[in-house]
């Protein structure tokens, strides 16, 4: 133990900048990974309640340690390589899915200018990173040397590329109204004296709905989870994966879901702003002021709502048929978003919506 601590001291003192950078990298990732574990537990619990079951309740208090038990089981399992598969790409695929989904967290703000990178082009960076995650799925399907995995990868690639267009357009309408690509500025543009009616969900209501539905489709979640569709193609792109690589795919999917749950409030529901902003002016104590002044608890409450909505959708809706998913994306969402980008431009030009009152 002493030698480990000594080695740690040596490393920190020899490479101060590098250890600082590594520490800053771990700062968002460790809470994210623990958050994913809690989210999986919450999903199983909520779906259990919706099915009038108990959900996990044996490992730890309220079954809280169930996910950790599952993770350790997965990590200790053998990784099975399919015959004639491409081993390098087979192992590269989960990483290629994981890294962009972690990288996207760099620009997510949890308070005014509180982000790991307060980048000017934050929204573009997010779009670029989320569009790169699809490689992991395609490569997984191809490298597995399996028909089912290949079919799942094809479906997923087509679906993600289609819904990215609708998602991109809804982000465009947000940036037209906010006049900035910086996520912190986008939230500040929704501040004002009219409470929750200053947020962008009101002028951009169709885009808000389309954004979240596209987000569900982008993360390949129910009711758009045809990439895994158990009844048709067994488990889709990850049918051949076992052990740690499967755990990485699982982690990526849930990290992406939490990312979309963060973006929906940041873009449309005022991020950390309070829904009663401008209606109450008082100074009581720092632990109650956030209720009307806004603060990170509001952001996390909104994120919790959207994360739960994901689970709610999964328990409520039957799976879409594949051609209907494509129809919804191309023939319904994209025309609506194109029209609404024009409407948003008019709102900005004629001053119907003012950013940051």
């Amino acid at each position, binding site marked *: 133990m002493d030698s480990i601590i000594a080695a740690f001291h040596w490393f920190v003192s020899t490479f101060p900048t590098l250890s600082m950078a590594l520490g800053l990298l771990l700062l968002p990732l460790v809470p994210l990974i623990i958050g994913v574990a809690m989210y999986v537990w919450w999903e199983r619990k909520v779906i259990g309640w919706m099915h009038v079951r108990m959900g996990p309740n044996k490992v730890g208090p309220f079954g809280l340690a169930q996910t950790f038990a599952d993770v350790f089981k997965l990590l200790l399992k053998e990784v099975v390589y399919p015959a004639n598969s491409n081993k390098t790409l087979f192992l590269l695929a989960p990483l290629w899915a994981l890294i962009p989904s972690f990288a996207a967290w760099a620009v997510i703000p949890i308070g005014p200018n509180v982000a790991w990178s307060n980048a000017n082009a934050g929204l573009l960076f997010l779009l670029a990173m989320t569009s790169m995650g699809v490689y992991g799925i395609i490569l997984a399907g191809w490298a597995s040397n399996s028909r089912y995995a290949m079919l799942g990868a094809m479906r997923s*690639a087509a679906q993600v590329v289609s819904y990215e267009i609708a998602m991109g357009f809804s982000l465009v309408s947000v940036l037209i109204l906010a006049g900035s690509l910086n996520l912190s500025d986008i939230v500040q543009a929704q501040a004002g004296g009219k409470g929750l009616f200053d947020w962008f969900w009101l002028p951009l209501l169709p885009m808000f709905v389309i954004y979240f539905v596209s987000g569900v489709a982008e993360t390949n979640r129910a009711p758009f989870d045809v990439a895994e569709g158990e009844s048709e193609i067994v488990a889709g792109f990850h049918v051949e994966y076992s052990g740690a690589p499967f755990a990485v795919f699982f982690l990526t999917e849930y990290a992406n879901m939490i990312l979309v749950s963060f973006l929906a409030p940041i873009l449309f529901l005022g991020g950390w702003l309070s829904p009663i902003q401008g209606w109450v002016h008082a100074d009581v104590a720092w632990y109650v002021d956030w209720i009307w002044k806004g603060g990170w608890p509001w952001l996390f409450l909104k994120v919790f709502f959207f994360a739960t909505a994901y689970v709610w959708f999964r328990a409520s809706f039957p799976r879409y048929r594949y051609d209907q998913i494509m129809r919804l994306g191309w023939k319904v969402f994209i025309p609506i978003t194109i029209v609404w980008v024009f409407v948003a431009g008019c709102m900005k030009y004629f001053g119907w919506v003012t950013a940051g009152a």
Partner: protein
Amino acid sequence: MSFQLICFYAFAAITVGAALAVISVRSPVHAALCLVLTFFSTACTWLLADAEFLAIALVLVYVGAVMVLFLFVVMMLDLDLDPLREGFVRALPVGIVVAVVMLVEMLGLIGVRSMQLPAPPEPAAAAGMSNTSWLANALFSQFLLPFEVAALILTVAIVAAIPLTLRRRTGTRTQNPGRQVMVQARDRVRIVKMAAEKPAPAADKTGETTP
């Protein structure tokens, strides 16, 4: 040597190496992935030059969309590259000549530009705004007409591409998802009102006790 310079050389070396791998690896899927790496490290070098909009647009458009479809096609077709590779050695001299001419042209261009001393300051930094907003201002005020013309040409190209690939095959049976979505419950299910049927009381169940 500054950290930025080290990063630049690293990214540039990866770009060149990946570009060489694109034309030299055997599997077309690996070649496509190397092309993705080339695009990505090119974007990194642009990011070092403060051209953040161009860099992210390159990742978004080429890595995120174009190469995905490329990979899609390459995986579906299962190409046999051996017949394509037969002429590689024969075409090599021509390729080298073209590459050398391009190199000379590029060096000449850089040489001519570097002779205009001093170098003009970067317009975005001079205007005191970010690269992205400077580009947007320039595109939508100074270059509005060329921008709109380019957009029109692209739209026409998209519309033209669809009729070119659209062909009606006879004898296929297709569904109309629009009609399927609009279907109402009353089109499919007929609800019939009828009196409930009560089973006759069983007389032989004397052995069982009812709670």
